[in-house]
C-alpha cells in the first residue's frame, strides 16, 4: 500500500492540503469502525436504563423487602427451553402464579444433565410483554452465573423476584422465558 502513500506525496498541487484531508478521512473511517463496536455497550446500557427489549432489572434483597405490596394481582407464567445441542432437561416447577405487586416471590425450575459429561450451561431470559421487563425485579437468579452440572446430576434452581408498583396498568399477565445454552460450545454448530 506504499503506492497509496506515494499518491499523496508525489502529486504536484496542494500536497499538504490533500494529505490533510486524506488523513482526516481515514481517521473518520477508523473511528466509525470503533463506533460499530461502541454500539455493543451503548445498546446494553440503553436497554438496561430504559428496560427496552424485555430486559429485566436486578435489585438488592433489602430493597425488595422494603417495598410495599399493593392491591393488584398479575398472572406470571414461566416457560423454558434448552438449545438443541444441550442434553439437559429444563422445566419450570412453578408454572403459573398469581402475584401480588410489590411482594417477593420465588419460582423453581428443575434441571437435569442427561449426558455422561460435565457441562457448563448458561441461561438467558426475556420477559413478554417487553414493556413489563423493566418492572420485573430479580434479587436472585441462576441466570446470573454459569451453571456447572455433573453427569446425571439433577438440581432445582430458583429465581427470587418481585414486580414493582410502576408496572404499566394494562399489564395483567406476563411471561418469563428462559433458555439454557451450552456455554462451552456456545450456540453449537
Amino acid at each position, binding site marked *: 500500500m506504499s503506492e497509496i502513500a506515494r499518491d*499523496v506525496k508525489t502529486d504536484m498541487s496542494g500536497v499538504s492540503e490533500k494529505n490533510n484531508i486524506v488523513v482526516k478521512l481515514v481517521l473518520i473511517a477508523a473511528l*466509525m469502525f470503533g*463506533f*460499530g463496536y461502541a*454500539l*455493543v455497550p451503548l445498546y446494553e446500557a440503553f436497554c438496561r436504563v430504559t428496560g427496552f*427489549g424485555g430486559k429485566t432489572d436486578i435489585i438488592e434483597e433489602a430493597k425488595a423487602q422494603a417495598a410495599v405490596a399493593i392491591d393488584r394481582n398479575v398472572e406470571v407464567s414461566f416457560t423454558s427451553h434448552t438449545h438443541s445441542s444441550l442434553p439437559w432437561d429444563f422445566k419450570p416447577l412453578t408454572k403459573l402464579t398469581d402475584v401480588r405487586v410489590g411482594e417477593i416471590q420465588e419460582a423453581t425450575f428443575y434441571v437435569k444433565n442427561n449426558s455422561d459429561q460435565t457441562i457448563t450451561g448458561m441461561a438467558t431470559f426475556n420477559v413478554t410483554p417487553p*414493556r413489563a421487563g423493566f418492572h420485573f425485579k430479580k434479587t436472585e437468579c441462576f441466570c446470573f452465573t454459569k451453571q456447572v452440572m455433573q453427569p446425571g446430576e439433577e438440581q432445582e434452581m430458583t429465581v427470587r423476584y418481585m414486580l414493582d408498583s410502576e408496572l404499566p396498568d394494562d399489564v395483567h399477565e406476563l411471561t418469563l422465558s428462559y433458555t439454557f445454552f451450552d*456455554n462451552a460450545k456456545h450456540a453449537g454448530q
Partner: protein
Amino acid sequence: MSHAATAHDHHDDHDHPMPTGFKRWAMSTNHKDIGTLYLIFSLAMLMLGGAFALVIRAELFQPGLQYIDPHFFNQMTTVHALVMVFGAVMPGFVGFANWMLPLMVGAPDMALPRMNNWSFWILPFAFSILILSFFVPGGAPASGWTLYAPLTIQGGMSVDMAIVAIHMMGISSIMGAINVIVTVLNMRAPGMTLMKMPLFVWTWLITAFLLIAVMPVFAGAVTMLLTDRHFGTAFFNPAGGGDPVLYQHIFWFFGHPEVYIMILPAFGIISHIIPTFARKPLFGYSSMVFATAAIAFLSFIVWAHHMFTVGMPLQGELFFMYATMLISVPTGVKVFNWVTTMWRGSMSFETPMLFSIGVVFLFTLGGLSGLMLAITPADFQYHDTYFVVAHFHYVLFSGAVMAMMGGTYYWLPKWTGHMYNERLGKIHFWLTAIAFNVTFFPQHFLGLAGMPRRYADYNPIFTEFNQWSSIGAFCLGFSQLLFIYIIISTVRGGKKATAEVWDNPEGLEWTVPSPAPFHTFDTPPTVK
C-alpha cells in the same frame, strides 16, 4: 456555470507513449480507463447476478420444487443480492464517478490515481472469493444478504469467505470514497464554487461521506460475526450472553444509509439528463443540494424501520415510523423539481430521457410502497413478504440501475466518440420498462396476499402472479443482451459524435472533444 473551458490536446507536454494491453489496464492510473474498468465490471456483475435471479424465478414459476433444492435456492437469493448490491450497483456508480467527476469539475484526473487503481483491482478478487464459496462444503452463504446472526454463526466456511469478501469490498469503497472527496474538495477548476458544482458531483460527494461513515460499521459487524464464529466472543451469540437483535441494529445502521448510497448518485445522473432534454435549466438547484444533504442526514435515524417486528417498545416504533416518513419530504422535493424542470420544456425523448422519465415515475412508485411499509402496524403484515421485494426492486432496479442505463446512453458518445443506435436504444428502454413492471408489479399483490420472501416453494393460490413475474423476469434478463450489443457496437463504430453531443447541454464535460482524449484539463478551465 460557464462553458468557457477549452479542451486541451494532450500531447504537448506528455511525450511518453500511450501504454497498451496489460500495462494499460492492470496498472492504469488514468481516471477514464479505471472508470471503464469499473463500468465493465459492474455490467458483468449485473449479468451474473441476473443469472442467479433467473434461477430463482425459474424455480418459482410453479409451486413445489422443480429444479433446485431449497438450500441452493437460499444460496441464490443471498448471492444474487450481494452481487447486485456490492458488485453491480456500487461499482457502477464508482465507474461513473471516475469517468465524469474530473471532467465535470475540470480536473486532469482523480486526486489519488494510484489508490484508484487499487480500489478497482481489489474487486475482482473479492468477488472471486465470494463466488468460490459455491464450491466449498455446504455451498455459498444461504442466510440472505443481511447475514443475520445467529444463523450466520452456524453456517459453514462460506460465511467466512463472504466476510473476507465483504471486508475487501468495504476497503475498496472506502478508498473510492476518499478519492471522490479529495478530488471534489481539492481539484475543482478555479471559479467553481461549491454551489456551482454539477449535481452529480454534489450527490457523489455526499454519497462518499455516507460510505466513509457506514462501511466501517458494517465491517465491524461482520468482524464481530467472525470472532463469534471462531474466537469465542459472544456479541450476537445468546449462549454467551450476546444478543441477536443487536446484530440487526448494527447491520441496519449501515443498511439504511447504504440504500441511499445506491440511490443518491442516480438522482445526480437524472438531474443532468432531464434539463438537457427539457432544454431548461434544472429547477431548484439549491433545494436539490439541500434535499440531498437532508436525505443523507435522516438516513442515519431510520434504520429500525427494517426491524419493526423484533419487539421494540411502542415509543421506538413511533419514533422510527415518523422519522422514516420524514424522509419522503426531501425526496418529494426532488421529484417535484424534476417534474417542474420538464414542465413547459421543449422536451424530446431520446433514450437517456426515456430512462430518466422512467426513473422518476417508477422510483416514485417505490417510494410510495416504502411509505406503506413505514406504517408500523401495516408493516407487521407486509414485513418479509414479496411486498418488500417489490418495494426495493422499484427503488433499486427502476431507480438505481435504470438511472445508470440512462447515464450510459447519455455519456456513451462522450466516452466512445460515436452515437449509439437511437432506435435500438428506445427499444431497449421499452423492453426493460415493460418487462420490469411485469416482473415486479405482481409481487406487490403476492406480498399483500401473504406470500413470504426467501422460500423455494409456495401455496398454489399464488401461482398465477408468480408465473407473470417469472415470464417478466426472463424477458427483462434477455433484453439486457440488447443493451450489451448496443454498447459494443457503439464502441466499435457509428456516427461521429460532436463535442456537445446533445442540444446545448450544460457542463464542462461537453467542452472536451468526443471521444474525451486520454488527458483532459491539463490546464484547468476557468468557471465564471
